[in-house]
């Protein structure tokens, strides 16, 4: 589903590469934790998948498509097949839960009937039934993140990218968020999640890819967060 082939990324005006010779293959339906210290290149890895950044060297394939051959014109179509969740939720403050989720479909021109049908379904899926008319500021951080996940998933993407989705959330609530991501993963959606949260990584025992200074230093199925960062 996602193939990094010897990928190096050097940001302009930067001498040190953010990623260096990265080779990673994520297959369909996998759940992958991306771990590593701050500045190790996790977010860069995710941005490359979205073609928000271009690799300096190497090739990236997503869903069988070579991103270097993807024209600007086609990038939106790539992004429609990839959902994104961030640490800071990125909800629209002046729209209700329902409208925030529906927004993702409206702006890609989905018909109104379809939107009315699928939005409540996905709101139920993330466990927000009964709260669809609340505004974001009437929700807890955990609930806001569920809205963000609902928005990312409402178009049934093949891949869900999550950049520290539990970064602003207390540990107890984080477990709930992880359960939602796990549920989404079980529908066959590939999930790649960058995180600093050792407890979660250790509890879930999924594949772990560890980055350090832009290099992959560990790629372990059913892995743990890692000794150096206070793991098991």
């Amino acid at each position, binding site marked *: 589903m996602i193939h990094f082939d010897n990928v190096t990324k050097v940001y302009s005006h930067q001498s040190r590469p953010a990623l260096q010779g990265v080779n990673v293959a994520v297959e369909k339906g996998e759940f992958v934790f991306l771990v590593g210290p701050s500045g190790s290149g996790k977010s860069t890895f995710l941005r490359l998948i979205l073609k928000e950044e271009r690799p300096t060297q190497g090739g990236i394939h997503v869903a069988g498509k070579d991103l270097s051959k993807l024209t600007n014109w086609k990038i939106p179509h790539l*992004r429609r097949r990839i959902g994104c969740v961030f640490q800071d939720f990125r909800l629209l403050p002046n729209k209700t839960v329902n409208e925030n989720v529906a927004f993702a479909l409206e702006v890609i021109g989905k018909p109104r009937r379809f939107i009315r049908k699928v939005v409540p379904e996905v709101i139920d899926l993330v466990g927000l039934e009964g709260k669809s008319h609340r505004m974001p500021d009437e929700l807890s951080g955990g609930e806001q993140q569920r809205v963000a996940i609902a928005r990312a998933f409402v*178009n049934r993407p093949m891949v869900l990218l999550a950049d520290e989705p539990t970064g602003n959330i207390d540990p107890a609530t984080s477990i709930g968020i992880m359960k939602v991501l796990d549920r989404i993963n079980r529908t066959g959606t590939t999930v790649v999640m960058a995180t600093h949260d050792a407890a979660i990584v250790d509890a879930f025992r999924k594949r772990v890819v560890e980055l350090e200074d832009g290099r992959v230093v560990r790629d372990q199925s059913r892995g743990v967060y890692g000794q150096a960062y206070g793991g098991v």
Partner: protein
Amino acid sequence: MRAQFVLQEIWIGLRRNLTMTIALVVTVAIAMALFGTGVLLKMQVDKSNNYWSDKVEVSIYLCNKMSANPSCHKAEPTQGEKDQIEAQLKAMPQVADVTAETQQQAFQRARERFKDTPGFSDTIQVGDIPDSFRVKLKNPKEYQAVVAQMQGRQGVDQVINERAILEKFFKILGGLQWAAMIIAAIQVVAAVLLVANTIRLSAFNRRRETGIMRLVGASNLYIQLPFVLEGAIAGLIGGIFAAVLLGFSKVFLLGRLQQNLQFATSLGWLDVIQVIVFAMCFGVVLCALASFLTLRRYLKI
């Protein structure tokens, strides 16, 4: 494409930078009104020029009792002298046609022409305008030879080349036209800068929305359209004001000009409407294009 969504976004955008929008509308209105006025003046000049170019004549006024020219000695030339002058004119290769106008005919014509201003027409008397020859030229530009031969000739009071007078007048109109165009051009630059600024503010205000749109894969058209239409609508509103101003231009500037200067040709409303439509389209396209180009800088793809 969801029209309601797009319209809502435009409305929000226009309202959010209301002061900028107003400044933009005013600038576009002035730019387009001046531009349109320039075009109208040019049309008027061209039209009048065409009309006059085959009608202008060189008029040769003969001496009479009232002549101020000392060489006339306050006396009319004899019939023989008049015939001589006419013969000489007719012999010139540049001359197409010569008609004689007597004092009586000239008097009638003047009365007719100024009949709308009775105070003036009543004071005209026979003899105010002397006998004259009206000379039509084969090529109106070759008046020099005729003027040179007739000026100072025995029995001739004045030689008036209507074309030279008209040319002076057209030059003034031409100057006005250029002044309007130059100010319009400056206003156009100001409008472009204002559009750029307005759209930049708009893009900044809506960066959350556009960021999410980008992430969920909205097409560039969908992301940019509200901004471009925002510019276009501001341009359109400016254009509507410009249309009103151009209406005033037609009535007050060109209307007055026609009245006071006895233009035989007048621009019809059809011409004015053409100019208005053109100016409005120009305003809309200008603003939309400026928005679009600004977006390329401020909205990442």
